[in-house]
């Protein structure tokens, strides 16, 4: 038997219910793994006391025979989620020392399902980044390594991805605004799903771009993602954009049977300069799904090429407004003022000291695109593009396509610091395959499907119909099974 912290959620659940292990044992194993993995910088606030308390309570419930889905399962929580009494800082200095008096709906749902929180996980500051390098805590490190080079786990949910891939927890929450769950999942060889916009409540999740942000699970297997997503989801009257739609038991929908399913291959995702191994993996993925009984069809999503520019207008626009509340007046960091300085200086200094460079860049871009005289040229045009992208998908689904297969990322994980001097747009290109899904509000999942020539994991993305995560997970599981991805990073930390 593998070490407790290396178990999948499904196996751990069954073992817990069978009395073969206790939640305390599982939790202690994870806490030990976390302590041994400081170098990965995946966990930024550890909560061992809370974890053990929750584990003991979970063991009680299991003994009483009333164990809900995640009872006793130790999880990591992205620092973007507000967790009562525990630092929740979006990996930003501007929220230095911020401990909310409330619990986000998603984490509360997880706790109600019996989950145990091990700590808060590293991420790009305010979820803005694709390498976890914008974090105030410094970057999380990918447990996968090449030639002794430290690699990025991706971002923004880099800490979540690293923690799951390194077996520091059984699963983790992530959030995905433009690919922040799927890209790091692909970079670390794990599964990550961004559900349909409105599936998970955004209440208590620190906002980046409200119309795009969506929480989702990051796990070792598709089955675990199904289990965790069911627990996280649900209508929340406190979030007006949360959908009042029943949440099915996603795990129960994993039949493994995808015969007759129509899978679209969008030609516009075949980018110029795409690495041959990504293209080969994509083709292999299509073959695997065909072999499993699916019908593979070529489709067109004609407005794809406008998605990235539209995304990098809309997301910063919303962010510039969402981040206005970090002003040093009520909580978080406040700059020290010199004699005679007033409110304008307080704002300027607080925000200059509190935000990192990438956050500042996006706040400025967002402020610019919403400014009088530029609004129509940028923000309104981006909104129109967004509507067209959404329609592209609707047209394809109307033709009977059940899911769309694309690469998850344009490359495997790159080295930390490698992009430091690059044009920021180079970093934004990481999101090229993922942002369309956020703009259209659709569910998308990244499944590990192979290794590149250096031995680094690569992921494929499946995009589903709105509210059909169960079906999407089922296709994803078929892909997972066919790919047979079993590689683990060699433990070097």
């Amino acid at each position, binding site marked *: 038997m593998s070490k407790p912290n290396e178990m999948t959620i499904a196996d751990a659940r069954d073992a817990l219910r069978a009395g073969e292990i206790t939640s305390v044992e599982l939790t202690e194993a994870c806490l030990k793994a976390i302590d041994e993995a400081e170098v990965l910088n995946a966990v930024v606030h550890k909560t061992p006391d809370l974890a053990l308390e929750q584990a003991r309570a979970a063991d009680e419930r299991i003994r009483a025979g009333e164990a809900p889905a995640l009872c006793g399962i130790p999880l990591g929580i992205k620092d973007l989620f*507000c967790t009562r009494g525990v630092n929740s800082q979006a990996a930003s200095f501007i929220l230095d020392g911020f401990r909310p008096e409330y619990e986000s709906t998603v984490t509360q749902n997880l706790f109600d399902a019996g989950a145990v929180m091990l700590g808060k996980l590293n991420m790009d500051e305010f979820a803005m980044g694709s390498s976890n390098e914008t974090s105030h805590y410094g970057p999380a490190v990918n447990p996968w390594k090449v030639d002794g080079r430290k690699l990025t786990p991706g971002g923004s949910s880099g800490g979540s991805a690293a923690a799951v891939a390194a077996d520091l927890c059984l699963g983790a929450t992530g959030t995905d605004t433009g690919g922040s769950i799927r890209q790091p999942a692909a970079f670390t060889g794990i599964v990550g799903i961004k559900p349909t916009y409105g599936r998970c409540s955004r*209440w208590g999740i620190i906002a980046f771009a409200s119309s795009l942000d969506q929480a989702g699970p990051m796990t070792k297997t598709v089955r675990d993602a199904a289990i965790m997503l069911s627990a996280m989801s649900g209508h929340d009257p406190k979030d007006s954009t949360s959908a009042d739609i029943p949440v099915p038991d996603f795990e129960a929908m994993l039949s493994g049977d995808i015969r007759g399913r129509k899978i679209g291959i969008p030609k516009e995702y075949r980018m110029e300069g795409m690495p041959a191994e990504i293209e080969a993996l994509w083709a292999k993925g299509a073959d695997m799904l065909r072999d499993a009984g699916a019908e593979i069809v070529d489709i067109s999503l004609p407005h794809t090429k406008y998605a990235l520019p539209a995304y990098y207008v809309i997301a910063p626009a919303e962010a510039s407004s969402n981040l206005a509340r970090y002003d040093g007046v*009520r909580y978080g960091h406040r700059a020290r003022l010199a004699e005679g300085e007033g409110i304008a200086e307080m704002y300027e200094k607080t925000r200059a000291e509190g935000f990192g460079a990438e956050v500042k860049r996006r706040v400025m871009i967002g402020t610019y695109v919403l400014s009088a005289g530029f609004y129509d040229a940028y923000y309104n045009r981006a909104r129109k593009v967004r509507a067209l992208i959404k329609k592209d998908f609707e047209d394809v689904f109307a033709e009977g396509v059940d899911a769309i297969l694309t690469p998850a990322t344009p490359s495997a994980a790159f080295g930390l610091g490698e992009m430091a001097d690059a044009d920021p747009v180079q970093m934004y290109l990481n999101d090229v395959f993922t942002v369309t899904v956020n703009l259209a509000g659709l569910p998308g999942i990244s499944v590990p499907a192979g290794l590149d020539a250096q031995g680094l994991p690569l992921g494929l993305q499946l995009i589903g119909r709105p509210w059909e995560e169960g079906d999407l997970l089922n296709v994803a599981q078929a892909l997972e099974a066919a790919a047979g991805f079993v590689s683990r990073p060699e433990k070097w930390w």
Partner: protein
Amino acid sequence: MLDLTFDAPKPKVISGATGDWELVIGMEVHAQVASKAKLFSGASTEFGAEPNSNVSFVDAAMPGMLPVINEFCVEQAVRTGLGLKAQINLVSAFDRKNYFYPDLPQGYQISQLYHPIVGEGEVLVEMGPGLARRVRIERIHIEQDAGKSIHDMDPHMSFVDLNRTGVALMEIVSRPDIRGPEEAAAYIAKLRQIMRYLGTCDGNMQNGNLRADVNVSVCRPGDYEKYLETGDFGHLGTRCEIKNMNSMRFIQAAIEYEARRQIAILEDGGTVDQETRLFDPDKGETRSMRSKEEAHDYRYFPCPDLLPLEIEQEWVDAIRDSLPELPDEKKARFITEFGLSDYDASVLTADVEAARFFEKVAEGRDGKMAANWVINELFGRLKKDGLEIGESPIGAERLGAIIELISRGDISGKIAKQVFEIAYTTGREPAEIVETEGLKQVTDTGAIEAAVDEVIAANPAQVEKARENPKLVGWFVGQVMKATGGKANPKAVNETVRARLGL
């Protein structure tokens, strides 16, 4: 129903050195929605609470908090729109107006720029008998109020009270149809009256629950008509906006000052700069707050935390069916139903509670008499004590009972005033007062005759004079009334005196 037709009043004209000038005024009135909870949070809106005690996590803009629309506030806005005979938009949407200020925790105000909930309507503002201004309403939208910054508690620090943060406001935007300071005040008074009838805003200006931004410009006679004809604002002068006024008196003073300031500039050959100004009530002046160039760029965009606000026509219809009778209709009805004068009907319908009080008094009784008693006696007495109608120590039933005592001839009008004063101060029943105090009018002919005879017997000289000059009958009546303590029926006394004197 009376068909009331009105003539438009003359605009205010100011004579300058180079000729006459007219005023053109448009207003943005901010009315606090009468609601127990805030627009996007469940926090209380109670006035005068401990600073920062009515503040939810949403109001304080804690990380991750989201707004959820308060349906009742939407209903109140719809009700207000219907009361102003306005178009109700079944789909509206919320936008963010972005700016930094410590009393604005989110860093943006959620408002409705692009798609307001209420569209065009109108208000009839009466300026005298047969005179009224029709003021067109451009739109009404709902938005959040800001908190309060306090700069005078400490020499080094400023404080913020977030109790008002997030309270629902209706911004009622008029067309530039108001033509003078008095009209401006009358317009606000009319809005206030309608909203108080509707129960959608308490209209308390002192507490800041009703305040206005006033746009003032001046033009030459004839220009405004050209604007009306063409819709081209180019015919009108450059406007200045006077911000945040919460007193009728100051609004009038500010408009007057601002118009004269602009005229002086124009007559000097200068141009008026479009700008935002503040009124200084101590100096009676407006002064520049910020110019057009310094105007904020609010970077409005659709609020991504809220879905478009969609309402059903049936819901709107149900609200329409539940609307109370509004001031104009009530006034017309009072004139026809109770035979009141235009003036009395205006006075009695000015405030919905007063109108309600009057109707209770008048029900089944003489309407004119009821109006006289409510306006002259009750209002006068309340004013003396500085009380509102709702605080009246005498209820409508008791005032009605006094009127009944007069109608039945039990007491005279004069005695009735005595009874009213006792009832007002002690809360006793009018009938009981009359009984206990022995104030019942004497209609018994024998007793009156006896009293008359006594007075005649005691004043032979006056009798002689009265036979010469019948006008002296009144003196005898007065003496008899005095002798009977005012209780004798004056009419009976008069008749008896005349008979006895052989007139």
